[in-house]
């Protein structure tokens, strides 16, 4: 083929270059001369066109397909005769087929599930249009530059098939795609695969809905960021008091007996193991090996008397040279490890790096076998005396375990870190392991971590009860370990048992625990009781003593709650300078920016956070930003995803309802408000008071709305966010003067005028005071645009 116009296409298209050679024929990149856009032209094999029947069928299907317009189908634009053979003009998709994509990239399970839902959606659309694919496989799915799947080469196979064949092929494709993830797919997915293998059990549309569900389930993370802060809402304080007691985000480590951490313990950071040569190890084997090495090292630190462990969240995100890391982490010693494998036998290099320059003061090399995490654990533990001569480390009960249990534990740890399983399932699995292995300390640790984090997100006291029962199983010596005591502390705060919590702090102080830790815990204790100034002092002290991620974040958050958003932003900037990818800090920063009306900056911060780790809470906040930017479709998209991920979240539901209203889907909005109100009146603890109040008001049930508002405690009337909700309720109820009081209060407290720049507040435009306030805050656009608005002060126009 030569470049230039193909005479057969009558000058409509100019061939630019070949794109490849598929089984069907040659594909070329071409230019549509009239529309000036790039297209792909596929010239079909001439030998296949001898069968006259087939040729006609092809034409017929091309016509059907051309009418199809679906994001997951490669669009057909045109069809012409190029001499003997037909040629198809199609959408040019930048990207390769799925088979090649998989050969070139490591695809996440979530991506694979999303592709499956996209492919089935495309299939469903084509079935609806009367076209059957007949040859669905990875080579016929293209992945475009945005990472979405598009199905191509429809209806071109020589035999005619029926829809069930397509669905069966989808099942086969899914099996292939998910083969590597077989260990971690959820029961939903397994069940779906089973059903797909039964011919005729599912239609393409049903499969699409199921895959979408599986995908959203996968991206849901129940072990969330502690910052659950929202623009229009602050969570019921009882929940969000967020005692971030846990230093280690996941790696479960434990002490067999009480730890005396002298005020001058040496801080040790365990760097994530580096895989220099994976040998023949699969991705999963590598993860398990790396996890086993890291765990063992961490356990050894915590089991020793004179060492304290620097938290994993910090360690995971810090960058730079060894010397820089030592400074950023506030550590005295780094332990670095490298793994080189040949086959499944690996050489593990361990290095101890010291302040200030990061020089290597100790070096050990040991062989481990990839398939034996317990063996790895033992091998690593044996090296400890060489890395830290003269120091002993506690036995954590691992001696009683066997390989299978240790592996199960390692996998659960990994699952918690990667959010690849729901909290409920992790807790259930740990409980069952504990029944057999009551003495294995790390299990308690993992359990406490997951249970507390989940409580913080869900607000369901069930998690606290379960944790308490599980802690009862522990040997008293075990229960006195530092970590479990800190978990107990958190539990007490969540329950509001401040005296018990104070006791824990006092005990730790007496035992000579690290000063920064004591200061931090004291800060949390004050914060739980809304004593923000006292809390601020404690956190400042903790951060000064040890500028760790956790302490700095606690300080920033407290400043925010104390009504000092600019101070909070400054603290967060300091934190982000040290720990660039800290999603907690990014999230809080976005919320503050949002409240200050800096929408573009908030959007950027939230998108960055989502790139680092997709999280439904962050998504909901992003939705809020779009809402305020008046980009309702984008807002809806984000809220829908957040809602799909966690449909119990009342704030998201409210936001979604509001967005539907703003989009004009009034009935849909009302349906969602009704759901909220129903749950609230049934006593569902996850529906926050302010949400309920707004929902009632939107439904026109003003008495209930105002009664609900009154339930918010007096102390919180000083805070800004409830004022916004109250303002809305009163506005909807027609009580403009009271509403204005709330608007005033909110604006005084520093809430940005952008919060009131919503259609819901339009009725207030009749009030002079409102217009004045909006003008002061540069938000007078809305009122000016309304029909019937007058510029004359004091003249009330028609009430809406």
């Amino acid at each position, binding site marked *: 083929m030569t470049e230039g116009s193909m005479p057969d296409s009558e000058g409509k298209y100019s061939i630019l270059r070949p794109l490849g050679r598929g089984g069907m024929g040659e594909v070329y990149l071409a230019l549509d001369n009239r529309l000036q856009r790039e297209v792909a032209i596929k010239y079909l094999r001439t*030998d296949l066109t001898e069968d006259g029947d087939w040729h006609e069928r092809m034409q017929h299907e091309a016509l059907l397909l051309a009418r199809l317009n679906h994001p997951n189908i490669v669009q057909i634009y045109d069809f012409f005769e190029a001499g003997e053979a037909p040629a198809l003009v199609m959408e040019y998709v930048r990207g390769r087929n799925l*088979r*090649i994509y998989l050969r070139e990239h490591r695809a996440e399970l979530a991506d694979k599930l999303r592709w499956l839902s996209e492919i089935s959606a495309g299939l469903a659309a084509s079935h609806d249009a009367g076209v059957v694919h007949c040859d669905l496989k990875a080579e016929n799915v293209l992945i475009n530059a945005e990472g979405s799947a598009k199905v191509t*080469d429809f209806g071109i*196979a*020589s035999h005619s098939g029926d829809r069930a064949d397509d669905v069966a092929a989808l099942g086969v494709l899914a099996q292939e795609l998910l083969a590597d993830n077989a260990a971690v797919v959820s029961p939903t997915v397994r069940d779906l695969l089973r059903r797909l293998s039964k011919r005729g059990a599912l239609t393409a549309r049903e499969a699409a809905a199921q895959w979408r569900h599986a995908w959203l389930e996968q991206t849901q993370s129940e072990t969330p960021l502690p910052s659950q802060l929202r623009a229009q809402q602050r969570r019921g304080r009882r929940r969000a008091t967020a005692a971030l007691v846990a230093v280690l985000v996941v790696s479960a480590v434990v002490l067999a007996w009480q730890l005396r951490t002298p005020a001058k313990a040496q801080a040790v950071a365990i760097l994530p193991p580096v895989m220099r040569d994976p*040998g023949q190890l699969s991705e999963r084997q590598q993860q398990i090996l790396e996890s086993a090495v890291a765990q063992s090292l961490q356990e050894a630190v915590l089991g020793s008397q004179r060492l304290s462990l620097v938290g994993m969240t910090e360690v995971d995100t810090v960058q730079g040279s060894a010397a820089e890391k030592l400074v950023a982490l506030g550590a005295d010693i780094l332990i670095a490890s490298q793994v080189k494998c040949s086959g499944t036998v690996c050489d593990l290099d361990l290095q101890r790096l010291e302040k200030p320059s990061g020089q290597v003061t100790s070096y050990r090399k040991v062989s481990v076998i990839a398939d034996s995490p317990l063996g790895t654990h033992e091998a690593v533990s044996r090296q400890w005396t060489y890395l830290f001569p003269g120091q002993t480390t506690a036995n954590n009960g691992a001696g009683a375990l066997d390989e299978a249990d240790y592996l199960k534990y390692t996998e659960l740890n990994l699952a918690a870190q990667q959010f690849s399983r729901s909290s409920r399932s992790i807790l259930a699995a740990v409980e069952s392991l504990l029944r057999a292995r009551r003495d294995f300390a790390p299990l308690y640790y993992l359990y406490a971590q997951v249970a507390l984090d989940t409580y913080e997100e869900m607000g369901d006291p069930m998690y606290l009860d379960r944790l308490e029962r599980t802690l009862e199983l522990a040997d008293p010596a075990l229960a006195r370990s530092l970590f479990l005591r800190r978990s107990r502390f958190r539990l007490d705060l969540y329950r509001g048992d401040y005296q018990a919590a104070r006791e824990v702090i006092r005990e730790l102080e007496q035992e000579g625990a690290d000063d920064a830790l004591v200061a931090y815990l004291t800060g949390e204790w004050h914060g739980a009781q809304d004593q923000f100034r006292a809390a601020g002092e404690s956190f400042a002290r903790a951060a000064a003593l040890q500028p760790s991620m956790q302490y700095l974040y606690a300080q920033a958050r407290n400043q925010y709650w104390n009504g000092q958003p600019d101070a909070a932003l400054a603290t967060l900037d300091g934190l982000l300078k040290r720990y660039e990818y800290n999603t907690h800090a990014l999230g809080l920063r976005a919320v503050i920016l949002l409240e200050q009306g800096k929408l573009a900056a908030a959007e950027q911060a939230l998108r960055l956070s989502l790139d680092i780790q997709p999280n439904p809470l962050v998504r909901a906040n992003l939705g809020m930003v779009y809402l305020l930017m008046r980009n309702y479709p984008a807002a809806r998209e984000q809220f829908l995803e957040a809602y799909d991920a966690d449909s119990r979240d009342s704030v998201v539901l409210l936001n979604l309802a509001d967005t539907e209203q703003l989009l004009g889907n009034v009935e849909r909005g009302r349906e969602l408000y009704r759901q909220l109100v129903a749950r609230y009146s049934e006593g569902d603890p996850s529906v926050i008071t302010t949400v309920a109040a707004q929902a009632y008001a939107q439904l026109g049930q003003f008495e209930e709305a105002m009664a609900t508002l009154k339930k918010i405690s007096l102390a919180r009337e000083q805070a800004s966010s409830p004022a916004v909700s109250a303002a809305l309720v009163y506005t909807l109820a027609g009580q403009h003067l009271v509403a204005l009081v709330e608007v005033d209060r909110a604006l005084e407290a520093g809430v940005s005028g952008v919060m009131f720049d919503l259609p819901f507040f339009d009725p207030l435009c009749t009030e002079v005071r409102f217009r004045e306030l909006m003008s002061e805050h540069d938000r007078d656009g809305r009122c000016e645009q309304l029909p019937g608005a007058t510029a004359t002060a004091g003249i009330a126009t028609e009430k809406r």
Partner: protein
Amino acid sequence: MAQIRDTDTQRTFFLRAHHTLGRDAERSDTVVSSPITSRIHVALEWDGDQWNARDLSKNGTWLGNKRLISNESTPIARGDKLHLGAPEMPALEVVDDGPPQSTLVGLNGSDSLELASFVFLPDQNEPEAVVIYSFHRRAWMVHPMEQDSPQHLERMLHHGDRVGYGGREWQVFLAETEQMTEISTAPESSLEDIEFVFHLSQDEENTALELKFSGHKLDLGERSHHYLLLHLARLRADQAASGYDSLTQGWIDNEQLKRDLGLEMPHINIMIFRARKQIAETLTTTLDSELLVERSKGRVRFGGSRFRIYKGAALTHSMPGQQAQKQ
């Protein structure tokens, strides 16, 4: 047959139609392990006319001293040198830019063989197994000669598998990484399109075979394996004449066949494969020759249903049934 040479280690490797190079031992076709190489660093692809390189890495790929644009295809040809990760890295040189070719790569001094249907292993003369592309399974299969029912021992060849026969060993190199479309690999002709015309000498020592196919006559000469086909065809015609239907006519037990021919099973299998090879290679269109001799649970039969057998000048058998005419 496309080949790249690592100028650092001097090892060479063949290229697959889509070939990845990188640090990831499990997923790259060729492992290049250095700290600055990405897990999958660069992909080399054959587009039907030429080879192209596409950079997928973090640190970059250089063609000569020019850095490739990320994820964009650039043609490469013989003599070109690629540097992974940095321009001063040892070059990977393209020593051959021919099309990718599936091959049985010789190990331990054995010669390499191009992978094609009817390649006999270890060689033509004393075959212990034969490699054939199976259309309906869309895969390469290797059939050992030994057993009564080779079906049971036949196995699919995967890229990287090792195969050994007759003291020689090969590693399977499959150039194609994608599953081909059903259409492109479906055979173009079927057995029904062919009429087999056998000429048996009076003393039954020599059998000549001709094929009549879409208006052409193809002379296959005289071969020892033609007698086997004829023997089976004859039996089929006889049974058809006795009233057996098309599903049941022509089957003969392997044991009986061995006795009839005075041969052991491996030898019989060799003849069957030679027959398939000859016919498949003589036709200009592709044919799924698996059906030439049908096999089932310890028995076989002739798969063709259109044939004529002449002994000397006389027509002795034909299908579909025609009057035998003395000439």
